[in-house]
């Protein structure tokens, strides 16, 4: 009798193991498909930079038959590439800094201070989120031209900041609201005012949301094509998405060069993400209030 029981238990255990194994496999398969959807285009782009235009036509996804490193070398050796990258970097970093600075201050006011018209203003900002960038492009162009900022990095930075503000403020405000109220009260009793609290408490305790919003704003600005296209006419001020155009000939588009170019321009955005990633961790206020 005893042996029978043991045997049944063993079968049951095996069944459970089998079920969990098939579950794991299904999970792994699903995750692999999702990962492939992201990685394969990136990989094709990266490998495409090593192929000739002819090979790219015939077998776009294969491993290159001959590894032509000279396309990458030509781009890296070209001063224009570094200039595009530099321009993009200046514009993106300035947009990120300006967005974080202005949006966090505005959100702090909304989160901390109750004043007449606060709700109205917040709804107004939310409305801004529904406004597609492309529809505003003509008035935006006219406005930037009137300010005399055409062919100027500021002509790109300021509108970009303005358009990312709404989203950033909404994210910041909900995060700032979660900071325990007692923290402000304790600081208030200790002699710290609103502005001091913002710099000494709100900002240091909000690194996760600062990193998140920063990454969003950076990627958005880094990949922006439309705005630089209408604002910047001087080749020396081009950002990288505009710079790609130089590989478009009259009869032939040099796709291999474009792919190599794109592969190289993804790198800074990736580096920015890796830097901010470690700050995107929750639970920083642990130990302040209760357990």
């Amino acid at each position, binding site marked *: 009798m005893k042996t029978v029981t043991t045997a049944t238990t063993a079968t049951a255990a095996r069944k459970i193991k089998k079920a969990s194994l098939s579950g794991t496999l299904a999970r792994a398969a699903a995750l692999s498909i999702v990962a492939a959807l992201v990685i394969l285009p990136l990989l094709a782009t990266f490998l495409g930079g090593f192929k000739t235009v002819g090979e790219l036509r015939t077998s776009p996804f294969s491993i290159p038959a001959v590894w032509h490193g000279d396309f990458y070398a030509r781009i890296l050796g070209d001063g224009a590439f570094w200039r595009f990258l530099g321009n993009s970097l200046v514009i993106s970093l300035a947009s990120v800094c300006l967005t974080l600075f202005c949006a966090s201050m505005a959100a702090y006011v909304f989160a901390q201070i109750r004043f007449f018209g606060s709700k109205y203003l917040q709804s107004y900002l939310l409305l801004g989120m529904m406004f597609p960038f492309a529809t505003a492009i003509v008035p935006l162009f006219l406005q930037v031209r009137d300010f005399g900022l055409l062919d100027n990095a500021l002509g790109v930075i300021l509108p970009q900041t303005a358009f990312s503000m709404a989203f950033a403020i909404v994210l910041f405000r909900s995060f700032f609201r979660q900071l325990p109220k007692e923290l402000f009260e304790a600081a208030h*009793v*200790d002699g710290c005012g609103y502005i001091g609290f913002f710099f000494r408490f709100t900002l240091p305790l909000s690194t996760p949301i600062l990193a998140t919003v920063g990454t969003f704003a950076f990627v958005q600005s880094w990949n922006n094509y439309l705005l630089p296209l209408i604002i910047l006419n001087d080749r020396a001020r081009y950002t990288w998405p505009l710079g790609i155009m130089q590989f478009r000939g009259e009869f032939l588009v040099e796709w291999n060069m474009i792919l190599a170019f794109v592969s190289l321009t993804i790198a800074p955005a990736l580096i920015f993400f890796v830097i901010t990633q470690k700050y995107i961790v929750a639970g920083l206020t642990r130990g302040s209030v209760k357990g």
Partner: protein
Amino acid sequence: MAALEYINIKKCFGPVTVLPDISLTIPHGSFTVFVGPSGCGKSTLLRLTAGLEDVTAGVLKIDGEDVTDKQASARGIAMVFQSYALYPHMTLADNIGFALKMAGLPKAEIRRKVESAAEVLQLTPLLARKPGELSGGQRQRVAIGRAIVREPKVFLFDEPLSNLDAALRTQMRVELAQLHKRLGATMIYVTHDQVEAMTLADRIVVLNKGVIEQTGTPMELYTRPQTLFVAGFIGSPKMNLFSGKVAAAAGAHTFGVRPEHIDVSENGGEWRGEVRFVERLGSDTFLHVEVPEIGLIIVRMDGTSTYSGGSTIGLTPRAGFTHRFNEQGAAI
């Protein structure tokens, strides 16, 4: 001179009046406890004192100086919060020294003061840590340290022990009492726990629905409650309160006697009833006795009592230990 004077303080939140009219003086060096059920306005009164809320009407004086419209940091008070409210991104030393830094004291002096406060609270080895790495009791001590270091005129405590477990609470209670003795400072302490109120206070202020029911020493409140509310609130288990015939016989609307002031006898007794339920705590035994026409009476006996459920016993309230209240609930 009084450390604190509340003169006709009124506080409304929108249409809701939380404190209709509070007048109270708190003497220098006293340990005053505001006690009452939740929602009675005790925390609001403390927050008004701290300057975290504005008073609707009335005057608040600290050390004779009108501070009604002064900023919290300019009032010379320090507050310990229920949730500690430590600064999570700062070390303990920075937490304790923050107020001094805000006041613009030189670094060396801040360090000296922080170190001496840490020594008093046995936090010296932990000064470089952050609040997240501490236990509940240690965090509470840091919160107290943050108050001590400012050398305030008045300490304010808002239910500081309610997040701690029972054993730690007892220990911190003793530490707080010792701290008060050593510093000799004026302390105001808010709690809904009457054990904390009785053990810590040299003066208790009982609040109910925004009104001060009674002010006095713990024993005054226990032996001579001036209102029905205080009689029911102070003491555990609650005072037995009866209305009806028994009260009328004593010439009152409500008649009260504490469980520990009832003598039990096998035979005779003023009232006779059946023991319904026995609670044994070891040191004490509580008998729940059903007396016809009066109702349930709780009697405290010592732990060796052998009465059991079902037996009929006689109860006699001890002379001189009974309380009588009129229809408005005031003591006669």
